[in-house]
């Protein structure tokens, strides 16, 4: 008679995580943005190609929000180790140092940079389409309930984003934060025909009885609304970095 081997302890299933969006937010020195565009378009983007940094999926500037004046762009990566190696190689390139020195002339143009790694939200696919985008884009970083982050993405997909779409908003992207800030926060990027359409929708979203009832129901269930304390940046896409619908590549 043989003894049956002890069953191994149950483990969680393997995961495959290989789709990342790098959000780079540059808080500019006031008055130093205009020639920064020349540096990015003329020097940085060609050097990105040399070092394996992909072309940005979108490039924006913003003058309204917590980091303005703001220069922002998004890169897509399949491997964060490749991302680390590419940026290290880029920053070590003497051509880049020379271009920066020529542009800055001893006076920096960027005050601070805030670099976050995001992952696509599981609900993003529900909002992808190919209609052309308007000229006002809105980046929102939501403070979300940490206890069960999936609830927030469901709420966005079922309540908030359809509400905004019904008022002319287009969803460019829905993300969850992964590195660089509080993790599991929701990030949304929406596009609008113009700023007035967005303002009207924002007012409606903040005062609509149905939305308010949803938030009250969340307070009853979770002790707080699923979404709160959102940071909002109003952005204008830049001609040399115009995003495709759904931030599609190419």
């Amino acid at each position, binding site marked *: 008679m043989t003894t049956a081997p002890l069953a191994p302890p149950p483990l969680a299933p393997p*995961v495959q995580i290989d789709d990342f969006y790098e959000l780079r937010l540059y808080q500019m020195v006031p008055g130093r943005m205009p020639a920064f565009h020349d540096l990015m378009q003329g020097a940085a983007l060609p050097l990105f190609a040399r070092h394996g940094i992909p072309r940005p999926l979108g490039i924006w500037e913003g003058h309204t929000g917590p980091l303005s004046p703001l220069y922002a762009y998004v890169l897509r990566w399949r491997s964060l180790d490749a991302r680390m190696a590419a940026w290290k190689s880029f920053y070590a390139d003497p051509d880049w140092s020379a271009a920066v020195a020529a542009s800055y002339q001893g006076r920096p143009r960027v005050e601070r940079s805030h670099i976050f790694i995001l992952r696509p939200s599981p609900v993003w696919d529900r909002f992808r389409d190919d209609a052309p985008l308007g000229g006002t884009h809105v980046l929102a970083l939501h403070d979300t309930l940490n206890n069960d982050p999936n609830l927030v993405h469901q709420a966005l997909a079922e309540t908030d984003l359809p509400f905004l779409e019904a008022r002319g908003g287009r969803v460019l992207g829905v993300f969850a934060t992964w590195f660089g800030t509080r993790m599991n926060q929701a990030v949304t990027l929406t596009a609008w025909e113009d700023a007035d359409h967005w303002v009207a929708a924002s007012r409606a979203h903040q005062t609509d009885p149905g939305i308010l009832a949803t938030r009250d129901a969340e307070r009853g269930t979770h002790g707080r609304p699923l979404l709160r304390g959102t940071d909002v940046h109003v952005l204008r896409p830049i001609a040399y970095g115009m995003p495709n619908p759904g931030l599609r590549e190419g």
Partner: protein
Amino acid sequence: MFEFRFYAVASGRMASELALVHDMAAAGAPEVPGGPPGAGETLWHRYGVPGPLGSWIAHSGRQMPGFLYIIKWDSLAQRDANFPRFWTDPFWRARRAQLTDGMTLVDSIETWLMDPLPAWERLAEPAGGPVGGVHELRLLPVVNGAQAQAAAALEQADLPALMAQGARLLGLWEVVIGPNRPQFVLMLAWPDAATQARGWAAADADPAIIARREDETVRHGRPVYGVADSWLMEPMAFNMPAANLGQTFGGAK
């Protein structure tokens, strides 16, 4: 790559958070989910998650009550293949449920990626055992474009002065993925809180450091460091950090 994790623990939940972290990263994993600790490997080891280099609670700083730890990864592929998988682990879920009764344990988790600065290795101590006392984390925003000067100032002026006052260097990094860059992260160990307070007061009045700051102001329009965010921390007995947080810097030290 060093991953720094800051937990804003829900008010009144620190004891539960410490118990959970202890049971996952320090104690032997139970035989069945929700069971008593076993005698073998930790639950983290089952998933290939390295033991954190140190675990701390904060006594000062923002978003108190705070719990912090640092993990060193060989690669981010290793990290993402192992750590997120652990978050759906049935043992972890069972223990968390026991400790929290379904209520929120942590309000938010901030996670940064950091690279060591070369000055850390040059100032490192000989390898040594657990470092007690009071630990201090300082987040140092650096004037953009002055990173090299800021690192040199730390290495040549600020850290020697603080070490002369009784500080030991535990770690020094630059934030790669995170907010408010360029930003350095400095971790010190002090024998006690009174020495820490005296040490900073003395460094702040040190003529050599004052002269350095004045020179920086001439060159950059202001000192190369902005206003620091400082956290006074207590290392947890179940995971006391070693000298240099256990880094051997290629075995040379």
